[in-house]
């Protein structure tokens, strides 16, 4: 379970953010006292830091510069200053991504996922029971049989695989699809899911994807 550290001085935001990240399978640490932020980050050694620019004692950009002297932990700047100059500065200081408030929670999760994926080892091939899934080729292999997935089906399936045993909402799937330049509508999503189910059924996984009415889907 990846560890994420939230450096944010607004209590409501940090509390809700913690809840959001926890329910998406991350371990989360908050900072309450900002006098010694740098050392707290270093001692917790998170897999990712969400860093607000406007924090007490030390500006987030300065903190980032100091952090970069000692650690390469991925950092996403989260801020309400949405100018290109601020973004370029943050990236120059060593941030991995830059998100402006107010952000769409699904998009935030996708960007966190993307940064973690980029920095961890390339996981192009995922295993699911006795299936081997090659994401970039859009291929599921079971022994000798191969099933080809379309791009949309692969996006949906890999999202479900990355969130196994957790309810995934249609909204999340939709956001991931749009994030991959597949601007489809509700009907098309339903169609893609039933095709994906049919293909899984062909290789013996009858009820891999379950529907939870009013909530979403779950891959168990």
């Amino acid at each position, binding site marked *: 379970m990846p560890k994420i550290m939230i450096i944010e001085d*607004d209590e409501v935001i940090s509390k*809700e953010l913690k809840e959001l990240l926890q329910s998406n399978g991350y371990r989360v640490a908050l900072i309450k006292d900002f006098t010694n932020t740098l050392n707290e980050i270093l001692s917790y050694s998170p897999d990712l830091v969400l860093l607000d620019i406007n924090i007490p004692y030390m500006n987030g950009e300065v903190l980032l510069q100091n952090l970069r002297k000692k650690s390469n932990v991925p950092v996403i700047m989260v801020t309400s200053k949405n100018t290109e100059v601020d973004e*370029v500065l943050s990236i120059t200081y060593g941030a991995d991504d830059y998100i402006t*408030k107010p*952000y769409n*929670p699904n998009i935030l999760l996708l960007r966190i996922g993307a940064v973690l994926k980029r920095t961890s080892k390339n996981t192009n091939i995922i295993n699911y029971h006795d299936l081997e899934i090659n994401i970039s080729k859009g291929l599921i292999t079971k022994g000798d049989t191969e099933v080809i997935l379309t791009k949309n089906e692969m996006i949906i399936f890999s999202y479900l695989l990355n969130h196994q045993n957790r309810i995934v909402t249609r909204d999340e799937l*939709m*956001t991931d699809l749009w994030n991959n330049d597949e601007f489809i509508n509700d009907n098309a999503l339903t169609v893609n899911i039933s095709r994906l189910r049919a293909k899984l059924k062909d290789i013996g996984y009858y009820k891999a994807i379950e529907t939870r009415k009013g909530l979403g889907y779950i891959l168990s």
Partner: protein
Amino acid sequence: MKLNKYLKDKTYAFILSIISYILIILILLAFKVSKDLIVLIIAILIIFFILMLGIDYFRKRGFYCDLLNKINYLDKSYLVLEMINKPDFYEGKILYDDLYNINKSMIENIKIQEEQLQDFKEYIEMWIHEVKIPLASLVLTLNNHKKLFDNKTKRQLKRLEDDVEQVLYYVRAENANKDYLIKDIDLAMVVKRVGLKNMDDLLDNKIAFKVENIPYQVLTDAKWLEFILGQIINNSIKYKRSIKNAYIHIWAYDDDKQVTLVIEDNGIGIPSSDIDQVFDKTFTGENGRKQGTSTGMGLTICKNLCTKLGHQITIESKQGEYTRVYLSFFKNKYFEVLK
């Protein structure tokens, strides 16, 4: 400065001189002075009178012609004092000194206004950043407690976000400050971000979002462009037709000089009587009046932002059929060479 007007202005001098000549002639005649001498005296007087006027005219002409000429040619005519020499005749000196004082007080006044405007702008920007914090926490709360809130709340929140954003860009568009950064931007990436941002609205309104392959890099500020595209897409959503295949279609083409991004919708369109005014400040037009929620600011801000970034924005539409917005990004040869 024209001679005839100058002479007309000196009518009183002519009249007084003529009266004085008549008096002199009468007096000389009374003293039985010889006629030749009278003619000589009057001739001398007339010659000196003309000389006096002539010298006066040419002294003033030099100064005034210079002044008027430079006022006409300067685009900021209030700077004319920096360009002319101080005259050597009394009236000219008064004019020059007074103009100097008037100018000084005006500049001081403008300076105060500018400072106030700058303070106001900074306050608004700061306020917007402040207000985004509770907005961000609301968005998160709403997402974490979906059961407590319905979609209406989410939609209202999105509207609030959009309106706050519009104020921010209005302030940025109306001020001379350069808070943008132009660099190479992947056009497809910006289109995707705008699509994602408006995904809920597009899906709720059952508008198909069709994006062609856009393999172009353009010189722009990504944040500003995102806002501009957001406004255009918001308009397409707002003025859609309730038909089955409502769509927004986005594509781009490159014609050597520029890359053009086209955003087309099959919404209600814009009446031809309104189309020339869509970029005017607070113009709402027929469609805006029907909708009732139009501020008439969105496209004005877009136009201003485009002007600053050096892009061109044009709209064509057929009422009841389509609206097409063209955004053109000029290529910079100099920049290409630098790269």
